[in-house]
């Protein structure tokens, strides 16, 4: 008997399924029937975002007693500290990074991202907002709309968040005045119109005192709408625009034995059924889906965002980074497009710069061809510029070394979004949303997938063998040689994209020479271990990332 069977057996013997168990079953079913709404907070520093979330959790009885006790001083609860969980945040009294909180009511389940207002941490606000269905934009009733309010509202709009709740906070400090509220409401509505935010719902609140958070306030009888929680429970869910075609980025190839080749991935958009005609991109090879395989059995149909394994009618080598898509409505295949970029790195983004770009499951090299404009947050106008500095938002033209299989962000969030990674420090330097796409010509102009490298190993046969086998698993061309006096020739081979492992009888450090763009650059590698050298190679962009294939082979 297996462990699971044994436990079930014991449970059945020991305690007959009683009333309580049946009642719980019902409750769980109700739980599964609830919708899930993700929302994030936005607004300028100190407008009261964290206080509002703390109050919302507390008044809806979604905080544990020991957590409340931990933030109570002299009988007063510091609501912001329920979410400001980092020591530095408590010391400085500001939010630095997003806090994710989870709660549920009888109607819905919620995932909250409480984000920082401080301009320095705009990247963290974007992190929290990127997965939200609703944004709550806060405004301090004493101050109204500030630059940072506009910046956040702008990011929320670019991220495609369809519903914004505008919470006009600290009404207790403005004598709960209807006039004050109306003034801010009008300003916010104008802002929403400007930013093409489809729906803006204003609500006057006092986060500190709990007015209109969970319970309707007695002190603002002129307000006839719902409390914030009431709004969150009833706003329509952001339903991704029904996408016509299947988008299935291949994350990994599963090949447990000779007779099974499955493509593992999460459906980014659309629906798939066995028998559907699909196209593998970028190769353009057409075939049909044979099966949708999962641990729970084969499925008749699967839809976004399920994680599944597809098998195809024809044996074909498809690897990570490629996409299986609907044959009748495929995505664009592009090496040049325009994107809106939120810049998050201290080094400004400039035309001519090169970054790594991650889009669905592939990482490619990206060249910034042009910077078209920057949004002036104060006036919400686009201006010409030649760079995007930290926290700037602008339009950029990007060219990639390999084609992306993409849609515009408007059509599909997951196949229209990308991140830019700085290959010098590996930081996530920017987030991009594809706006318009130039389709790549059908004839593939093969841009070199990667630049090669020459690794001088000396007398290290073991390391050479280890490297060779690891590199072969990544689909890269490998040449292992003991030829002498042919360095120039080997470098030429490296420039074609191969990784050359040069052995000799001499001792000395392990040297790595990248043959990029003519000028060879040599690095001394400290490590004796293959993994360290591989990391170094990847960091220098010399081998394609993530193309490892086949569990059975590489593990």
């Amino acid at each position, binding site marked *: 008997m297996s462990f699971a069977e044994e436990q079930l057996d014991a449970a059945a013997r020991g305690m007959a399924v009683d009333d*309580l168990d049946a009642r719980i079953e019902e409750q769980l079913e109700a739980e599964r*029937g609830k919708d899930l709404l993700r929302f994030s907070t936005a607004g300028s520093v100190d407008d009261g975002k964290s206080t509002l979330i703390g109050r919302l959790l507390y008044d809806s009885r979604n905080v544990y007693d020991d*957590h409340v006790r931990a933030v109570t001083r002299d009988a007063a609860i510091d609501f912001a500290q329920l979410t400001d969980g980092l020591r530095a945040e408590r010391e400085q009294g500001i939010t630095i990074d997003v806090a994710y909180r989870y709660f549920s009511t009888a109607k819905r389940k919620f995932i909250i991202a409480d984000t920082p207002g401080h301009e320095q941490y705009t990247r963290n606000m974007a992190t929290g907002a990127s*997965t939200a269905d609703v944004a709550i934009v806060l405004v301090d009733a004493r101050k109204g709309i500030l630059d940072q309010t506009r910046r956040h509202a702008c990011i929320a709009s670019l991220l495609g968040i369809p519903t914004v709740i505008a919470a006009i906070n600290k009404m207790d400090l403005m004598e709960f005045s209807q006039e004050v509220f109306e003034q801010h409401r009008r300003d916010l509505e104008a802002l929403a119109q400007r930013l093409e935010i489809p729906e803006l719902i204003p609500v006057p609140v006092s986060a500190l005192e709990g007015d209109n958070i969970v319970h309707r306030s007695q002190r603002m009888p002129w307000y006839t709408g719902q409390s914030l929680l009431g709004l969150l429970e009833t706003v329509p869910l952001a339903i991704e625009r029904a996408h016509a075609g299947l988008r299935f980025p291949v*994350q990994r190839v*599963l090949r447990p034995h000779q007779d099974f080749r499955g493509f*593992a991935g*999460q459906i980014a958009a659309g629906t798939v059924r066995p028998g559907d005609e699909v196209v593998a991109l970028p190769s353009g090879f057409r075939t049909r889906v044979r099966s949708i395989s999962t641990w*729970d059995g084969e*499925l008749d149909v699967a839809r976004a965002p399920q994680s599944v394994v597809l098998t195809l009618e024809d044996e074909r080598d498809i690897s990570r980074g490629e996409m299986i898509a609907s044959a009748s409505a495929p995505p664009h295949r592009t090496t040049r497009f325009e994107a809106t970029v939120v810049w998050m790195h201290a080094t400004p983004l400039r035309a001519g710069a090169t970054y790594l770009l991650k889009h669905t499951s592939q990482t490619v090299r990206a060249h910034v061809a042009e910077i078209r404009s920057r949004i002036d947050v104060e006036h919400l106008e686009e201006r010409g510029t030649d760079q995007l500095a930290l926290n700037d938002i602008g339009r950029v033209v990007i060219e990639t070394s390999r084609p992306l299989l993409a849609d515009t962000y408007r059509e599909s969030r997951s196949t229209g979004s990308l991140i830019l990674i700085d290959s010098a420090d590996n930081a996530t330097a920017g987030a991009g949303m594809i706006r318009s796409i130039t389709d790549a010509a059908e004839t593939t102009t093969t841009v070199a997938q990667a630049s090669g490298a020459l690794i001088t190993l000396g007398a290290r046969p073991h390391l050479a063998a280890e490297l060779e086998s690891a590199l072969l698993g990544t689909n890269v061309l490998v040449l292992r040689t003991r030829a002498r006096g042919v360095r120039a020739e080997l470098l030429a081979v490296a420039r074609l994209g191969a990784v050359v492992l040069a052995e000799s009888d001499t001792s000395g450090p392990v040297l790595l020479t990248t043959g990029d763009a003519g000028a060879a650059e040599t690095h001394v590698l400290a490590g004796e271990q293959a993994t360290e050298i591989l990391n170094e190679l990847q960091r220098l962009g010399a081998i394609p990332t993530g193309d490892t294939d086949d569990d059975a082979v590489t593990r």
Partner: protein
Amino acid sequence: MTATAIADRSAVPLHEDGKRATAVDRFNHIQLLEAESIHILREVVAEFQNPVMLYSIGKDSSVMLRLAQKAFYPAPIPFPLLHVDTGYKFDEMLEFRDRYTSELGVKLIVWRNEEALADGANPVRLGTQRCCGLLKTQALLDGLRAHGFDAAFGGARRDEEKSRAKERIFSFRDSTGQWDPKNQRPELWNLFNARIGLRESIRVFPLSNWTELDIWHYIHLEKIPIVPLYLAKERRMLVRGDSLIPVEQSFVQGLPGEEQWVKCRLRSLGCSPCTGAIRSDADTVPKIIAELMAVRNSERANRIIDHDQDGSMEIKKREGYF
């Protein structure tokens, strides 16, 4: 969840008026969480050279392990498990570990700080903070380094504790294994930046968005085996104020009359001297769920080690008392 239930619309609950829920093609939150976690697991295996799963034997680990089975099926789980054994885990945990992992056919690596244990490290002698530092943190870092792991899955959830609520799913560690919470990488959509430099690594939390209730809910739906310590039964405990302290190690000794039989269970599994039990009648998974829905304290409220971060006075008293 059966194979068809995932996609079958009849699985969508009926509204009171007998109609199907209006949002037809909707998944329930458990299905959404599962899909997200599987995506994360696969992404790490595809992008890293040498990943490992930290296996703590607890409920979250059990769920994570099931998700790993699902993520790579029909291929086997393509990474080993690493259990950091402090030497003070409950016997029932170790039995469960050995049996379950061999039943699943996964590779298990057990790592202990033998040197510190030989020196007699225990929470009574060293205090919980130093003891944890040596037997858990140090052992973990040593274990990761010794095997050259560049990515480690952990079962931590954001709803456990408020500093965890701040952590990314891909949580970057520098070459000394440190986390810099003030300087985390932005993490947008489900695009994870897996780039690291020499000797740097990543901790990955596939269960970030699961709550304690979701974990039990999933264990229930999937019939996932759990260590029996989670289920209530009569156990020998030291009863001290509100605390129930398991009697497993010789250095945990009570005052006369403290040792009693109590019907209780553990809400979270750690080292026996530092994990308090709670009085409970919940002897089935549904009853645990019922209990959870009613509780007013967090699951870590009974963990002794979590309280020593800020206030040390409380700890000193505890140390003196033992």
